[in-house]
């Protein structure tokens, strides 16, 4: 079976992993238009290239980022999300904001 190198657990069977979508910048849902939000949720690059994606190691509930070639089915690199996200992403809703 194909093996994937989990940054936390090392080489594991690919059946333990779940694909989590392309890594892309989230628009601010409090200020963006519905169109921008739809674009973020539903529209994808879906390219034949080295792509940056979210992956989950399901048994340990660990999310990480992988760089993978979508034509060759080959991982070039996997790493912990802290390499990319240095600050906490806030998901506060506008409703809560206005109630304050």
């Amino acid at each position, binding site marked *: 079976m194909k093996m994937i190198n989990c940054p936390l657990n090392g080489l594991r069977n690919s059946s333990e992993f779940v694909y989590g979508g392309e890594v892309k910048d989230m628009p601010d849902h409090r200020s963006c238009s519905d169109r921008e939000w739809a674009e973020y949720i539903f*529209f*994808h690059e*879906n390219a034949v290239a080295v792509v940056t994606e979210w992956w989950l190691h399901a048994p340990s509930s660990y999310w990480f980022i992988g760089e993978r070639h979508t034509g060759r089915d080959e991982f070039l690199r996997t790493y912990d999300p802290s390499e990319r996200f240095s600050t906490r992403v806030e998901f506060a809703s506008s409703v809560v904001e206005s109630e304050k």
Partner: protein
Amino acid sequence: MPFSLLKYGLNSDFPYEKHADLPAPSALKSHYDVVIIGGGGHGVATAYYLAKYHGITNVAVLEKGYLGGGNTARNTAVIRSNYLTPEGVKFYTESVKLFKELSNEFDFNIMYSQRGQLTLAHTDAAIRGFRQRVEINKHFGGQSELIDAQQIRELVPSLNMNPADMPVLAGLWHTDGATARHDAVAWGYAKGATSRGVELHQLTEVTDVEVRQGKVTAVQTNRGKISCGAVVQAVSGHSSILAAKAGFKLPITTYPLQAMVTLPVKPFLDPMVSSPSLHCYVQQTSRGELVFGGGSDPYPLYSTRSTMDLKEGLLANAVELFPAIAQMRLMRQWGGLTDMTSDYSPVMGLSPVDNYYLDAGWGTWGFKATPICGKTMAQLVADNGKVPALIKPFSMERFYRFAQVNEMGATAASH
């Protein structure tokens, strides 16, 4: 039955035709009224209906490989209309009607064989879903009914009624379920289109799409530039890649779908049988081979490679359904590319570029839609972008309006 078959049946000579099915390759012209990108079933069907019913014959079908050699050749050739949403059922019911008449329409045998399709329910929830599908199907002219375990036993005596300890409780019996020869469908349409003046250019790859002031004006190919009035993209498996050349993104993610076939044996399985719970469908072809298909691969990829783990999982379940086939040998395996949308419905109609029409988002439901896609896409082009009612719900805009068509009946095996 096409009438030419009768003529052959009464003839002592080997049935051959005096003319080749397709004209010899020709040079590209510098301008076509309509350029269809993709020479699979959908592309040539669109060309056929444009030429035959709308009189538009200055049309080029550009195919980077060979006719019907992409995902038209890689599906499992299932034709059915037992979908869940009214939009889907109406659309695919029309397609089944066209398929039934196709051999006569072409005078070319597409080997249409109506066997019926049986989907198994192993849970109460599945039965509830089937009831809903049956009612919607009947309402829109499809042929579906809910049958019980005894009827299933009579219909498919070789079926294990307790596969993987998941008892078969009921079935969705779709008498319209059928299969046809996929190559014949592509060739029938191509022959009909080219004999009416459409040009089919194989080994012609579109490398770029030229857009001026929001309107498509030309396509660049490996054989030179062609100016055009309108473009239809029908390249499922690579929809996002071509759309990127025209400058926009699609709500599509591309996954491989693997299938395989055994050595031929004597006929024992008449209907096509599928189990969404076991992610597996089985049918016996007219040659006697068993065709297996299942869910798409677990992650996106543009490779048609086969994997051992998917085969193991799929065949373990197939053997649970039909224990008698455990010793059979596999003969071939292959993979196709499925352009999956998040609501399991296609993306058809207008695109963000004027005169650039989309026939995309064909995940695991493309072959069965071939005739109706050709017909509606041709109408769309002939009416200069007035979207036919049948495909209006499948517009790309639905994702921006959060008006998806949630087609849970799209796949015989869940993905």
